[in-house]
Every structure is written in structure tokens, then in C-alpha cells.
């Protein structure tokens, strides 16, 4: 279509403009809104680049969950303003940050523009060996099959991030519930919506998980939808965040990683390398990894957005 360069150019200008506005605007909440809008337009750009897997992840995690995290941080900062009298960094720090950002952006641009065309790619190799994993979606075949160790490490990083968020709480709140207690009016409109959406959200989440074998989807996107409706239910006051010290909660958080690790170590014995799958059982093992992993990631993402514990634990 001969309109394509204009459309892509328009999208690029929009993305750059939104990014500039988000940085320049004064009010923190307005900046968060700008960031969410930025994420949405970037997801559309990924679709223009024919990368639906990335677009799905950007819309879900980059825009949705990260937006939720920023909201929690902004709201927390508004409640407890920073201790130093002038919360803004000094001039020299800002110049250093600006220089580092510009250098990183220019470096990335140079690297991308100097790639040879066609750029070197392993995609034909993946397509050749796709049958070994039992999956038809090459992206998930790489994420859970050929480079499963990266996904395992990502989930470790998520757990560490959660520990980092929890460690922001004062000592006396350790083990307590995050967020603030909500008074709920049973007839309020938000309560109605929060009762209606979670079952649908669970269906959508399961669909995204299962369809990941053949089409864009998978455990991260599914977990994000599940976490989002959990956060909605909590925001409406239908359920409260669980106390962070509760043993069953901690079990849910680690079970995904534990199963992943166990299957990986079993692969050492059975198939000769860490996280190797015997080809006959590859699909089965991948499903066995994905199910608890989705549950764990959903719990981790929800608790990340909930924030550090802010109420004293009972007992």
C-alpha cells in the first residue's frame, strides 16, 4: 500500500511526541497516564511490524502492569513525600542522566541502522527444528524450548523484584497485608463490575495460555490478564490482599519456578542437558511447566502492583 510510509511516520511522530510529553509534564499522575498511552501506541507499532507476540506483551505488561506499578508508586509518594526538602535532583545529576540517555539512544540507533540487510537471523533454524518442541508458535518454541533457561531466569528476576518491593516496608509491617483496607458498599457500581469481569478474565487468561502453542499468547500474557482482574477485585474491595507472610501465598509464588527448575534438573538426567526435553514428551513437559508458572507469575505481578506491606500482621 502506497500509504505505508506516511502511516508509519505518523506513528513514529506520535510515539516520540507522547514520550516527550510524558517526561516534560509536571504532575506525576498525568505522566503515568501519558506512559500508558505511550505503551498502547507502541503496541500498535509492533502490530505494524507484524510482531503480534511482542504487541500482546507490550499491551499487557509494558502498558498495563507497569502502569499499575507506577500508579502504586505515585500514590505512595503522594502519601509520604520524600524526606529531603527539595525532592528534585541537582543540576549536575540531571545533566549526567540526560547525557547517558542520549548516548544510549544514539548507540541503539547506530547499531540498528548499521545492521546488514538482510539482518542475520536464526529464524530459519528455528523453523527447521520446530517439530521437536511440539509447539507450532515459533516464539514460544524459543521461549520455552530452545532458550527455556532465559525464561527460568526471568521468573527468578520477578521473584527478586517482589522481594525488593517487600523490603521497602518498615520492619513492623513485615508479613502484613499491602494496600489500604477498603470500605465497600455492596451496591456500588465498581463492585458490580468487579464481580462481572474476573470470571471472564479467567476465561480470557486460560484462552491466552492455551492458544500460545499455535498463536501469540503464553504464560506471561495470560498471567497479566489474571493479575489485572485480581487487582480489579481488590481495588473494588471485594477481596483483600493476602498477608505477605502467609505460607500458602509463598507456596503459590514459588511453585512455578520450583516445577520449572525440577523439570530442568530432570532433563540433566533424562535427556543429557539442563532443561532438555526428550522429544516425545516435549509438549507434555512444556504444558507441565506452563500451568504452575502462569499461576506464580500472576500472583507475583499482582503483588508487585499491590506494593510493600503497609498494615501490621496479626499475631
Amino acid at each position, binding site marked *: *500500500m502506497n500509504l505505508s510510509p506516511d*502511516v508509519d511516520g*505518523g*506513528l513514529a511522530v*506520535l510515539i516520540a511526541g*507522547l514520550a516527550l*510529553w510524558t517526561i516534560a509534564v509536571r504532575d506525576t*499522575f*498525568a505522566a*503515568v*497516564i*501519558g506512559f*500508558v*498511552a505511550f505503551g*498502547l*501506541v507502541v*503496541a*500498535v507499532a509492533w*502490530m505494524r511490524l*507484524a510482531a*503480534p*507476540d511482542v*504487541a*500482546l506483551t507490550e*499491551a*499487557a505488561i509494558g*502498558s*498495563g502492569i507497569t*502502569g*499499575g506499578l507506577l500508579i*502504586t508508586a*505515585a*500514590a505512595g509518594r503522594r502519601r509520604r513525600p520524600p524526606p529531603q526538602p527539595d525532592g528534585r535532583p541537582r543540576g549536575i545529576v540531571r545533566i549526567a542522566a540526560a547525557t547517558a540517555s542520549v548516548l544510549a539512544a544514539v548507540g541503539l540507533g547506530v547499531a540498528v541502522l548499521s545492521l546488514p540487510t538482510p539482518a542475520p537471523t536464526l529464524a530459519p533454524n528455528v523453523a527447521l527444528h520446530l517439530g521437536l518442541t511440539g509447539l507450532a508458535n515459533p516464539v514460544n518454541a524459543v521461549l520455552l524450548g530452545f532458550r527455556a533457561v532465559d525464561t527460568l531466569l526471568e521468573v527468578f528476576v520477578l521473584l527478586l523484584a517482589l522481594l525488593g518491593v517487600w523490603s521497602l516496608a518498615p520492619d513492623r509491617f513485615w508479613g502484613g497485608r499491602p494496600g*489500604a483496607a*477498603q*470500605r*465497600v*458498599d455492596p*451496591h*456500588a*457500581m*465498581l*463492585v458490580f463490575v468487579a464481580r462481572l469481569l474476573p470470571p471472564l*478474565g479467567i476465561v*480470557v487468561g486460560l484462552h*491466552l495460555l492455551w*492458544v500460545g502453542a*499455535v*498463536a*501469540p*499468547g503464553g504464560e506471561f*500474557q495470560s498471567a*497479566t*490478564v489474571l493479575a*489485572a*482482574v485480581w*487487582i*480489579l477485585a481488590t481495588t*473494588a*474491595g471485594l477481596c483483600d490482599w493476602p498477608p505477605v507472610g502467609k505460607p500458602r501465598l509463598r507456596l503459590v509464588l514459588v511453585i512455578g519456578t520450583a516445577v520449572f527448575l525440577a523439570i530442568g534438573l530432570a532433563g540433566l538426567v533424562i535427556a543429557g542437558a539442563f532443561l532438555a526435553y526428550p522429544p516425545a514428551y516435549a509438549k507434555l513437559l512444556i504444558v507441565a511447566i506452563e500451568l504452575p508458572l502462569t499461576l506464580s507469575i500472576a500472583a507475583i505481578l499482582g503483588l508487585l502492583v499491590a506494593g510493600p506491606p503497609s498494615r501490621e500482621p496479626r499475631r
Partner: protein
Amino acid sequence: MVEFLTAAAILLMAIVAAGLVRLLLGPGIADRLMAVQLLGTGSAGMLLLSASAVPMAGAVDVALVLGLLAALVSVALVKSADPSMAGEE
């Protein structure tokens, strides 16, 4: 039909991007949230149109997640920007 749907998709995106003016101007969070809500819904519609023209696997799912999460993030933002609104009618 394919050309019509593709043109409609581009037009819809342009319309909704123009609505982002409200994001810049809107005195206050409410107006900015409305611009983002429109962006989410419009992007979902745009993806539906272009997926109908040139089918791409997963486009419908991306549209679903875009529309849903734009709204849910807005809900979370309104609730936390105004904590006195905890659940009351």
C-alpha cells in the same frame, strides 16, 4: 473490501490520535484518562479492522488486551488518585 477496511483502520487511528489533544490540554486527570480510554478503544477497533483486511494471528487477542487493560489501568488510577472514593456509591 480489503482496501476499504485498511483505509478505515488508518482513518480510525488518525481520529483517535487526534483525540490525544485532550491528553495535552485536559485540565486534570479525568480528561486525560478519557483520552487514554478513547485511545484504547480506538486502537482495538483499528486492529479489528486491519485483522479483517489482512488476517494476522493473534490480532484479535491484542485488540482484546488493549481495550481491557486501558480501562482497568484507568480504574486503578482514578481509585488511587482519590482515596476517599473507597467503594462508596
